[in-house]
């Protein structure tokens, strides 16, 4: 009699254990909810148009990140355009393009970017964005900024939440090498 009653108990225990394991496997992601909510102080300067034109000029040429086949796609006035009736060199960068650029840049390493912002912009080279731009990590386009130059200043001060507008404006100008 006892032998007969053990079978359902064992079965029930097994099913319960299985259900518990399954439930655990399907539980909600960790405390971050699976996404990073970046500080508004990062986005606002983009929306204000302080940073995007500089990134567009330095990174977004049609043969680099202004190419639809490349990662970190960048839209800009002199590069790739979003509207089908617009052309490079046409109207100034639009809010839609600015928003797309923000998503491209901030979506690369949002967790690390969040940490950099939390640290007041300290050690920005934690970001691939900065290492690639400075050429300290392999970058097909080479070192497009030098530490402390206007573009580097624009990027690193943006990560503090207060971009240096003068530096960004300067970096957004067509190069005056000639």
């Amino acid at each position, binding site marked *: 009699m006892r032998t007969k009653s053990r079978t359902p108990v064992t079965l029930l225990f097994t099913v319960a254990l299985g259900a518990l394991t399954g439930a655990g496997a399907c539980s909600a992601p960790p405390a971050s909810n699976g996404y990073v909510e970046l500080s508004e102080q990062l986005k606002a300067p983009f929306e204000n148009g302080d940073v995007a034109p500089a990134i567009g000029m330095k990174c977004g*040429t*049609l*043969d680099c990140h202004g190419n639809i086949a490349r990662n970190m796609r960048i839209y800009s006035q002199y590069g790739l*355009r979003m509207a089908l009736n617009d*052309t*490079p060199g046409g109207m100034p960068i639009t809010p839609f393009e600015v928003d797309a650029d923000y998503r491209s840049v901030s979506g690369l390493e949002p967790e690390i970017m969040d940490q950099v912002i939390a640290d007041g912009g300290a050690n920005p080279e934690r970001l691939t964005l900065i290492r690639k731009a400075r050429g300290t990590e392999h970058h097909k386009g080479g070192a497009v900024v030098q530490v402390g130059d206007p573009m580097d200043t624009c990027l690193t001060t943006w990560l503090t939440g207060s971009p240096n507008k003068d530096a960004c404006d300067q970096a957004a100008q067509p*190069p005056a090498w*000639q």
Partner: protein
Amino acid sequence: MSRAIGWMLAVGVCALAASCLSCGSPVHDQQVAEMGPEPPGEHPGPLHRAGQPCLVCHGWLGPSHTEFAVAGTVYKAINDKTGVDGAIVIFTTPDQNSIAVQTNAVGNFYVVKDRWPLSFPYQVQVQYPKLPNNMKMASPISRDGACNDCHADPAGPARFGHIYLVADVADFPQ
């Protein structure tokens, strides 16, 4: 028996070698195919295929044996695609190194890779002796010397349209 094994090995090695030699880029192969045959009356040389993306064939994947560092075509105006002979295309790097190349009878210009002294990025301007101002490109070139890739027609979200010296051909000096 050992002879048969030897033959099998030889065939296997040949097959492996052949497969490695055919390891091209299907994307590049398609780009070359899309260029089509030479236009009627043209032959491979400095005057052929004006306006086409030169480095598709003159890049490191061939099929041309002459590899270019930069190449393109200069036209008179937005509304006149006549090639300009004698325009000077000047490439300048941030450290002020520069190189100049002259366009030929159909507006083509090119520099072969072995003679190219500059490294990216560089900016470009086009000088024409009869025009008072040089035509300057607003954005730098960062990694692609194939000018006609971006300067292709029709102009659109990812294309500037062809390289030109004046907006309206009526302003082009005689």
